[in-house]
């Protein structure tokens, strides 16, 4: 696959998915603590989102950072716009801004660590396995 095709795929994924998370690993098996926390925040809010693992091909990450201007992973896009990496997403989550932005309700137990919710959420709730398309 050419780099330009990867970039086009990424652009399309960001456009097609209202909530699009680029991460290391998958929501079920995150490969990095920052990715785990970010996916955990989305899981805790129970929103439907698409997730793409950037690890299978390092060009995914290069092209993604090229188009977003953001150097690290994870990267969360909402409505086609980069919202932030782990720090910003977690700060927004804690302030309730992420729930507001996504039209979701905050979990009732305010003390719950978002990461703890990863195991509790049914897989059917969101993550769309986009990586399969890129691996072909």
């Amino acid at each position, binding site marked *: 696959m050419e780099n330009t095709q990867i970039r086009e795929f990424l652009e399309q994924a960001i456009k097609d998915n209202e909530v699009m998370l680029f991460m290391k690993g998958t929501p079920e098996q995150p490969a990095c603590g*920052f990715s785990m926390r970010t996916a955990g925040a989305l899981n805790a809010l129970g929103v439907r989102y698409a997730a793409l693992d950037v690890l299978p091909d390092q060009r995914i990450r290069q092209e993604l950072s090229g188009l977003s201007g*953001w*150097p*690290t992973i994870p990267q969360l896009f909402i409505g086609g716009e980069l*919202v*932030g*990496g782990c*720090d910003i997403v977690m*700060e*927004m989550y804690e302030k309730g801004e992420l729930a507001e932005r996504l039209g979701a309700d905050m979990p009732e137990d305010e003390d719950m660590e978002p990461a703890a919710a990863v195991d509790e959420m049914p897989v059917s709730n969101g993550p769309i396995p986009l990586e399969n398309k890129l691996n072909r």
Partner: protein
Amino acid sequence: MPTPDELKQRIESALPGAEVQVQDLTGGGDHFRAEIVSERFTGLSPIEQHKLVYGVFGDEVGAAIHALSIKTSTP
């Protein structure tokens, strides 16, 4: 390998007047946490604020600096 002091100085010279604290999270010299208070962040979105900080280090973020966790605020 970058040190917290080195990162702190580089952020301070890029954002004059900023109050900067940098921690080495793992002691391994590649996972850092920076807390920055600067006038420069006024009126910028969180994304723009963080990009300003990432911009100080360019390609080093994701390479020599494996992870840079950032917290920004205005005075």
